[in-house]
């Protein structure tokens, strides 16, 4: 019998689905890691397993019974959840917090009795938190708190424990500490452990089974060897990795080599034609994607000029409130020779900055790629048609017109 059996599970917070046709089985007493990039649906999946979210479609069966058929308290005796956020800003003692784990067993007016205190004692002993019992929960360290929250979960006497990134924000020794504890509970007490974890090396080291999610779908599942492969890593994280066997732990060890996109962007030189604030978003996104940027011609004091200057980008400048001089135009042409492509923002074109378009046209004729971002239908031509016909001409000669910066990032 499976502890958890999920079939064609679908879930979404709003219209779009976060989990798409997810199916898997988890054997009773196994140690399972959910891995995948941010936003892949790991945490969502975990919470759906605890019935915190109701699935849009498909089924979840817990010990061969439909999850939704469990009453809330009954479910709390089967599954305990350790949420990602365990910060408690109130002066409860550690023992009081662990005692809260007994809630699903207590009737409304029932006080905690000897057996509850015994279970709480055992839970604290197993998690090595006995010495903390009278300390306040908001005055102990993150690693200690994580163990206390696990003790609270154990006080629920569950068959399955779900943990949402139990090791994030912890020092490396505390990470090991928590995972060793979970492994011991798994081996010695037969507790089924399902956890979301970012560190793939730790996942490989501790798990019997790994479920690898990407975009709400299962990319792979099985033993670490079956799931953590160069192809899957490249697919999910867009990253080249080396995978070898660690000689100390004899488990898979993954070393990131390089991120694919970023590395390539670094060698791409992009010249931006903008002004009057039309380039702000463009400069920011291209800059954060790692492109090598240059700008021109910009008037000194212009808002785009200020942004470029704060990022220390090379640019061709012109004195404030005046048209582009022949000298600046020449400098701009020289700068354009060194770039791979030119992006023209949705900047209004007048007599003063028409030369920027002419420079771009020249670059186009020299075989450079030119992109024109027109994200609205507003009037931009203040040259009585000259700019418009120039744009038309450039389009004919291969300039690519785009609607958004996202499209641009896809193109280059």
């Amino acid at each position, binding site marked *: 019998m499976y502890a958890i059996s999920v079939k064609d599970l679908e879930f979404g917070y709003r219209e779009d689905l976060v989990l798409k046709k997810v199916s898997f089985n988890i054997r009773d007493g196994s140690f399972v890691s959910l891995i995948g990039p941010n936003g892949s649906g790991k945490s969502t999946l975990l919470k759906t397993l605890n019935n915190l979210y109701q699935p849009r479609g498909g089924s979840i069966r817990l010990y061969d019974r439909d999850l939704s058929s469990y009453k*809330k308290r009954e479910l709390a005796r089967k599954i305990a959840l350790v949420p990602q956020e365990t910060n408690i800003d109130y002066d409860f003692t550690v023992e*009081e917090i662990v005692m809260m784990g007994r809630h*699903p067993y207590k009737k409304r007016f029932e006080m905690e009795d000897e057996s509850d205190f015994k279970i709480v004692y055992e839970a604290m002993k197993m998690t090595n938190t006995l010495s903390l019992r009278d300390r306040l929960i908001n005055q102990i360290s993150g690693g200690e708190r994580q163990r206390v929250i696990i003790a609270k979960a154990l006080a629920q006497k569950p068959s399955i424990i779900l943990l949402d990134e139990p090791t994030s924000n912890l020092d490396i020794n505390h990470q090991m500490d928590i995972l060793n504890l979970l492994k011991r509970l798994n081996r010695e007490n037969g507790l089924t452990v399902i956890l979301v974890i970012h560190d793939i090396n730790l996942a490989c080291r501790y798990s019997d089974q790994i479920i690898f999610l990407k975009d709400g779908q299962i990319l792979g599942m099985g033993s670490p060897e079956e799931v953590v492969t160069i192809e899957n890593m490249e697919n999910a994280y867009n990253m080249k990795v080396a995978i070898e066997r660690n000689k100390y732990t004899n488990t898979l060890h993954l070393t990131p080599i390089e991120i694919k996109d970023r590395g390539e962007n670094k060698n791409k030189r992009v010249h931006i034609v903008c002004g009057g604030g039309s380039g702000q978003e463009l400069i920011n996104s291209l800059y954060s994607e790692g492109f090598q940027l240059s700008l021109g011609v910009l008037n000194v004091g212009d808002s785009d000029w200020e942004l470029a200057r704060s990022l220390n980008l090379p640019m061709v400048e012109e004195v404030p409130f005046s048209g582009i001089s022949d000298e600046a135009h020449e400098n701009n042409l020289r700068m354009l020779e060194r770039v791979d492509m030119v992006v023209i923002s949705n900047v209004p074109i007048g007599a003063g900055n028409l030369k920027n378009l002419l420079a771009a046209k020249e670059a186009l004729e020299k075989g450079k790629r030119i992109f024109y971002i027109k994200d609205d239908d507003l009037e931009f031509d203040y040259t009585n048609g000259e700019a418009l016909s120039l744009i038309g001409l450039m389009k004919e000669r291969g300039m690519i017109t785009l609607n958004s910066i996202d499209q641009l990032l896809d193109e280059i």
Partner: protein
Amino acid sequence: MIRKSGYKLTITFLITLLIFSIGLFSAIGTAKVSVGDIFKILLSKVPMIKNYVDLADIPSSSVTIIWNIRLPRVLLGALVGASLSIAGAAFQGMFKNPMADPYVIGISSGAALGATIAIVLKVNFILLGFSGISLFAFIGALATVLIVYNIARIKNKVPITTLLLAGVAVGQFLTAIMSFIMVISDRDMVKITYWTLGSLAGKGWEPVLKMTIPAILCMIVICFFARELNILLTGEESAQSLGIDVERIKTYILLLGTFITAISVSVSGIIGFVGLIIPHIVRLIFGPDHRILLPSSALLGSIFMIFADTLARTLISPIEIPVGIITALFGGPFFIYLLRTRKKSI
């Protein structure tokens, strides 16, 4: 810090202190009566025991003043103080927000507006033992809390800042409407002052008798949810995974807290800050466990309220100060102190 074993002791101590305070504060006033005489007068009204009490040495005018004026007033103050404090404690737990208090988040104003409308419209019906005024107050309070909650909410959280801002804005707006209605309907500014600043003066036994059973029942039911409120403080997801129906518990607390506020406000007007100060003091002394926090807040709230009301009627006697002024004189600085110590989390 007093924990577990101290529970019964704490409650017993506070109950004793409350009884003593009732006697003490009833004795204070223009007409001088000793604390012992107060209890004599009290006991003289209890069946069976009354045969053993001799009132011969107490002037009959004092007996009348104590029995007809001071005692009902003190008991009403105790009920109102307990109600507002327990409502504050419950709201603070539910919103996970230490600034939540029926007055600060505007519920009292909503209740007062509801009650005013009922008074102006001369609503006289009685439903399930509750007067039309109480029901209107409840509806006003409930509508206000829903409005404030929805304005203040950011996703599923209710940050301190937005709750305060929304509460103050909505509360002041409703108080303005209420005052306006009162000005139009009876042009009595004094009445408005006593209503918007709260007063326990001159009510007699009737409101005490009407309020006792629903208020005490309501407090007991709120205490039923102590364990759930504790667990809610550790986070909603945790609470849900412990088998608690979070949304249902929140709805119950909201309804109960609003109801008990409404019945208090409909007899006393808007008395501010009690629900803020008292739970905080209790939390400082006994810790955050609602099993102690809720009943202790109610008891300490009673004591504080009759203390404040005694100041209100004796400070510049024979002139009455609205008791809300006294509570605000304590509450305002306390509120600022809380804001400053909690600055980091805001």
